[in-house]
């Protein structure tokens, strides 16, 4: 039986993965002004989890991800669609950007940002869904706890 990763790889993964994740959030948040944005950030984050996956296996990756990648996809899509709706509330066409300044930290929140976060989640969730589905059938045979939650 092959172990998921060697010592050197696991240590590197432990170091690099948070770094990559942090970097992905950075790319996401500043994407409106510099190269970056939801896609790129999402792909980086997906790469980060993929590294973790290679080093520690699928179960460990799910453990740090906490939610199922499919939930991420769903949430991301929902966020993306919902971010188009506030415009309706104020009577603008869908997708019209709404900007709000959050007073205390002087952070400019906007529907494009929410939208971009949606993109981020979808990209991350999709790639992870695909990769973990591929990995699962690759070598793990035990039933997946997440599959048992399906209500009949």
């Amino acid at each position: 039986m092959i172990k998921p990763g060697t010592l050197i790889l696991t240590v590197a993964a432990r170091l690099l993965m948070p770094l990559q994740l942090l970097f992905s959030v950075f790319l996401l948040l500043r994407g409106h002004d510099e190269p970056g944005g939801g896609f790129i950030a999402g792909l980086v984050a997906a790469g980060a989890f993929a590294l973790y996956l290679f080093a520690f296996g699928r179960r460990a990756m799910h453990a740090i991800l906490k939610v199922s990648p499919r939930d991420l996809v769903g949430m991301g899509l929902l966020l993306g669609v919902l971010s188009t709706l506030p415009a309706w509330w104020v009577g603008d066409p869908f997708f019209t950007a709404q900007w709000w300044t959050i007073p205390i930290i002087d952070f400019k929140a906007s529907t494009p940002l929410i939208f971009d976060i949606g993109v981020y989640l979808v990209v991350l969730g999709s790639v992870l869904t695909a990769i973990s589905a591929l990995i699962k059938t690759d070598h793990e045979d035990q039933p997946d706890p997440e599959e048992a939650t399906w209500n009949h």
Partner: protein
Amino acid sequence: MEPLMAVSIGILFATAIYMMLRRSIVKLVIGLMLLSNAANLLIFVTAGMTRGAPPLVPPGMTAPEGAVADPLPQALVLTAIVIAFGVLSFAVVLVRRAWEIVRADDLDKMKDTDT
């Protein structure tokens, strides 16, 4: 540069088509990858290429100073790249499942549904 790229992209298309016409399913997938890359590049190149002026507004300004590269095709290509990524991931896995289920690498052996 554009004419040169036009020729290069032509070759990319040719390789893609050639690979897609092979009988091996794996080659088919590689052909599809080449094809989508070629198409994306084509959009980028046809819209015109600009050196050293990315479409970014410098901090504190409202518009770039000089001429910048056309941002619109870039956005289109970005969309197209991501779409192609999704579609190709699907195609790759499809090929794998097809192989597992049909047990034939040869596309010529996958014609039961037609005949």
